[in-house]
């Protein structure tokens, strides 16, 4: 019998990939560490003041709320992506079920389905726009925005929690090599532009 503690260490798909050399656009692309994530689906009447970790569930679609550790992105009318520290998985699950007790909902652990990549730097939006067709300007995608969208030929969830030029790209595990490679290529592709 193997030790649970040893075996519980997660092997992240981008774990071994190093960061790209600094380039003219100064954007950093960094795989995120292990996190816990849930896909929450629920139906409830609007105006219900449902909260998890102090974050309102009926926030507008395509926004993200965070208490600093837990973040909840509302991706659609009945869909949320919830993230948090890996150690808090059970706690978080319990709190969500508690908050939604009696309401139709589904809470599915997708911690291992999703991979996070952080893209940061002054030109981060330009780098993302190599493959993401959305308007990422301050007005159109302000701090607190989150949405499912595309990056090149992969589906991603794009989250901008704060005012910093820091974006979280979440993709499915098997697409992470592509998404990571795409972002690294985009860092180079943003070079040399008259528009920078």
């Amino acid at each position, binding site marked *: 019998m193997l030790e649970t503690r040893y075996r519980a260490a997660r092997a992240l798909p981008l774990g071994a990939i190093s960061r790209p050399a600094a380039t003219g656009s100064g954007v950093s692309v960094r795989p995120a560490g292990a996190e816990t994530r849930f896909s929450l689906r629920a139906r409830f009447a609007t105006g219900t003041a449902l909260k998890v970790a102090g974050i309102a569930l009926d926030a507008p*679609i395509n926004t993200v709320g965070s208490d600093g550790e837990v973040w909840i992105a509302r*991706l*659609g*009318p009945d869909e949320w992506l919830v993230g948090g520290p890996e150690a808090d998985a059970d706690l978080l699950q319990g709190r969500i079920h508690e908050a939604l007790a009696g309401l139709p909902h589904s809470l599915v652990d997708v911690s291992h389905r999703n991979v996070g990549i952080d893209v940061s730097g002054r030109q981060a939006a330009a780098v993302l726009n190599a493959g993401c*067709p959305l308007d990422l300007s301050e007005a159109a995608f302000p701090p607190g925005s989150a*949405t499912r969208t*595309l990056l090149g030929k992969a589906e991603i969830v794009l989250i901008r929690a704060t005012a910093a030029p820091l974006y979280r790209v979440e993709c499915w595990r098997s697409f992470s090599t592509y998404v990571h490679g795409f972002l690294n290529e985009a860092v180079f592709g943003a070079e040399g532009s008259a528009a920078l």
Partner: protein
Amino acid sequence: MLLIACPHCGKRPETEFRCGGQAHIARPTDPSTIDDGAWSEHLFVRANPKGVHAERWCHAHGCGRWFNALRDTISDRFIETYPMGEQAKSGVKPGTVLATHSATHAATQSETRA
């Protein structure tokens, strides 16, 4: 690439969407009671109008929701989009041929030439 107003997410590029063809084709509640001709109509016959078309779209790489739209198949302009299960508000009937499909600043360009 079209720009499509998802009722939940606002205007988004077409690549995030999947088109589901003609809208408002209700699946018969009990298909076993209808004859082969009616069933084949349900499955295969489509309006395909040259003009306003009511069609279904799914914001597949966005909120994941299906919704309906009225679009002019001559100009590809959308008249409106509306949630699944609802009827169009604009009152424009599918099949209508719109008189013009000019932009909202309808002034013709030569009128204002110096």
